[in-house]
C-alpha cells in the first residue's frame, strides 16, 4: 500500500442554516485517505457522515449548507494538491467525475432516466477529456464489461429502468471510474441492494480498488460492511469522529462506549439461539441521537452512555491516542473494553 495521502481533511466544519439558526452537522473532523486504502465513515442517521462526503464533493445545497471552517487537501491526478474547500464551482466541476468518482445509494435517482446507460457513462469522458462520441461510447462498453455487466454492448443502449438494481449500481460504478479517478467516494452504495447483490458489489469495488490503487472513502451505517471492505474506520456521532483506527483494531478493541454499544447492539448471525436459551437480550443503546439543534453540553454521547460521569458533561473530550493510529474521544477510554 502506498502512503501518500489523497485526501486530508483538517478541522472540517459544515453548517446548515435552518430557520435563521446555524446548526453544525459536521463539527471539526480530521480524516486522511491514502492512495490504495479504503476508509469507512460509519455512523447512524444524523451523525454527519453523508454531510462529510457531500462537503468533500462540494455538493451541499447552496444557501442552506456551507463549509464554515477547515481545509480538504486533495491530490489530483496531476499530483497537485489543492484545498477543495477553497475552490470555485468551475474548478470543482473539473474535479468531480474526473479526479473524484462518486457512487451514491440509490442508483435509480443518480442515473438520468431519459439517457441511455452508454450515453451517461461516456458523457464524463466527453466532458473531461474531450473524447469523441463514438470513441467514448466504445470506452463505455468496455467499462460496463469491466464492472461485470454481461452483454455490455446491448446494455449500453438501454435505459436505467431496463436494468435491475444491482446492474444499475454497476453502471454508476462504471460512470464513476470512467476518468480513472484517484479518489472514489461511495456513499451507502449497497444499502438499497439485496444482500446477495450487495456481496457482488462489495467484491467488485474491492477488486477495482486493488487494481487501480484508488483511495476510497466509503460511507455506510453497516458495521458488517465496514469489517468487510475497509482498512481504517472513523466512527461518527453527532457531527464528530468519536473513534478512529485500523478496522481490525477498532472492532476487536473498541475504546469508545458508542463504538462498543454499536457492536454490541448488532444482531449476529447464529448467535440468537444461545442468547434466547440464556434469556439474554440484545444490548441496545438506550435513548436516541440528540438533535443537532439541541446538543447536550460536553460529550454528545454522555446522555446515552453507561460510563458517563460528571466530567463528561463539562467539556467536549479531545480525540486521544490510545494506540498507534487508534484514537478515541472519551475521557474514560482506558476503562472501556469488550
Amino acid at each position, binding site marked *: 500500500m502506498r502512503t501518500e495521502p489523497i485526501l486530508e481533511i483538517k478541522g472540517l466544519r459544515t453548517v446548515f442554516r435552518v430557520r435563521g439558526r446555524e446548526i453544525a452537522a459536521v463539527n471539526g473532523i480530521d480524516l486522511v485517505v491514502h492512495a490504495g486504502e479504503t476508509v469507512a465513515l460509519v455512523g447512524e442517521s444524523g451523525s454527519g457522515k453523508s454531510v462529510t462526503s457531500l462537503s468533500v464533493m462540494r455538493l451541499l445545497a447552496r444557501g442552506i449548507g456551507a463549509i464554515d471552517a477547515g481545509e480538504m487537501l486533495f491530490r489530483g491526478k496531476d499530483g497537485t494538491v489543492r484545498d477543495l474547500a477553497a475552490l470555485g464551482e468551475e474548478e470543482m466541476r473539473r474535479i468531480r467525475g474526473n479526479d473524484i468518482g462518486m457512487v451514491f445509494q440509490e442508483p435509480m435517482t443518480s442515473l438520468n432516466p431519459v439517457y441511455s446507460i452508454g450515453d451517461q457513462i461516456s458523457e464524463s469522458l466527453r466532458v473531461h477529456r474531450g473524447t469523441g462520441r463514438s470513441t467514448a461510447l466504445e470506452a463505455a462498453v468496455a467499462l460496463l464489461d469491466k464492472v461485470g455487466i454481461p452483454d455490455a454492448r446491448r446494455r449500453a443502449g438501454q435505459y436505467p429502468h431496463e436494468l*435491475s438494481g444491482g446492474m444499475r449500481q454497476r453502471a454508476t460504478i462504471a460512470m464513476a471510474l470512467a476518468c480513472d479517478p484517484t479518489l472514489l467516494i461511495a456513499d451507502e452504495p449497497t444499502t438499497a441492494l*439485496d444482500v446477495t447483490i450487495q*456481496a*457482488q458489489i462489495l467484491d467488485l469495488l474491492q477488486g477495482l480498488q486493488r487494481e487501480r490503487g484508488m483511495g476510497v472513502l466509503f460511507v455506510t451505517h453497516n458495521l*458488517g460492511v465496514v469489517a468487510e471492505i475497509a482498512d481504517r474506520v472513523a466512527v461518527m456521532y453527532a457531527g464528530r469522529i468519536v473513534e478512529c483506527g485500523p478496522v481490525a483494531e477498532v472492532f476487536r478493541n473498541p475504546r469508545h462506549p458508542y463504538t462498543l454499544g454499536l457492536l454490541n*447492539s448488532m444482531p449476529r448471525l447464529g448467535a440468537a439461539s444461545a*442468547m434466547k436459551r440464556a434469556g439474554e437480550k440484545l444490548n441496545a443503546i438506550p435513548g436516541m441521537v440528540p438533535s443537532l439543534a439541541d446538543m447536550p453540553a460536553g460529550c454528545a454521547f454522555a446522555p446515552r452512555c453507561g460510563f458517563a460521569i460528571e466530567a463528561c458533561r463539562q467539556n467536549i473530550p479531545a480525540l486521544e491516542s490510545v494506540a498507534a493510529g487508534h484514537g478515541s474521544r472519551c475521557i474514560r477510554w482506558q476503562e472501556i473494553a469488550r
Partner: protein
Amino acid sequence: MTPLLSVRGLAKHYQTRSTTLKILEDISFDVFRGKVVGLVGESGSGKTTIGRSVLRLIEPTAGEVRFDGTDITKLSSAEMRRRRPRMQYIFQDPYASLSPRMTIGEILTEGLKIQGIGSRAERLERAKTALEQVELPADAIHRYAHEFSGGQRQRIGIARALTLAPEFIVADEPVSALDVSIQAQVINLLRDLQQRLGLTMLFISHDLAVVEYICDRVIVLYLGRIMEIAASEDLYARPEHPYTRALMSAIPSPDPEAKRGREILKGDIPSPANPPSGCVFRTRCPSALDACATAAPQLREVRPGHFKACIRDDL
C-alpha cells in the same frame, strides 16, 4: 394442537397485458398459537405478499388461509371486518404508515372506533395502555407523528396494532428502517410483548440475523416459492438449502477475523414474468444439476421439522 393460522396452497398471480406474473406459488405453512414464524427472502421473494394475503389486505388467487379454523378467503367483507380486531399489521415505514394530520390519540383509537368498541374515554384509556406497553409516555396522545423520532414512531405503529388486543400480528419489516442502536431496542420490545401477551406472529424481514432473534420457526423464500422451513435454532446451525447457505454467507460479519470464504451468488433474481423451469433458484445455484431444470422440487422433510425444496442430499 391445531394451528392458529394454517396456509395451504396459497398463490398470487397478477395479470399484465402480455403475461401472468406468478408472485406466489404453492405456499403452505402453519403458525401455532404463541409462536413466531419468520418469512425471510430478498426483494421479490413474496414475503410481503404472503403477509398481506393472510390478512386479506390483498386477495389471493388460490389457496386457503385458515384462521382459527375458518377459511378467511371465503368470508364476506362484513364477516372479515368482525375478525379484523383479532389480526393486526405492523408496517415497515414508520414515516409513511402514520397520518401526519391525526394526533397519536386519534391514530391509536381509530381501529377501536371503527369496530365500535368502548366509549371515547375507554378508547383513550386503551390507547394510553398501549403507549405504556411500548414504553412511550401517555401524553403522546396529544401530539403528532412528526414530533417523534423513527424509533418512537415505530413504537406508535406497534401500539396501534396492540389497542385492539389481537391474537395474531403480521409484522412487516418492523425494524428495517431503523438505525442499529434503535433497531435493537425495538427487537427487544417486540420479543417482550410477544412473550408477555402470548402473541402469535408472522415476522417478515430480509435480515436473517434479525429474524433469528424473534422467531421460533423460519421460512426461507425465493421468487415466490418456499425453499426451506425449519426451527430457527436448527436452520442457523445447519442450513440445508443452497439458497439459505448463500444468503447466510452473503451477510457481512462485523468480526474482521471472521472473513470466511464467502460464496458469492452470480447474476440477478429472475423476473417472475419469466421464472426458470424446475427449481426457480437453479439459475444462480452453485450446486444445480440438469435434473433441477425438469421439475419444481417439492418440500420434503430432511430431519424432524426441517423441510427443504431441493433434490440434492449430497451437499
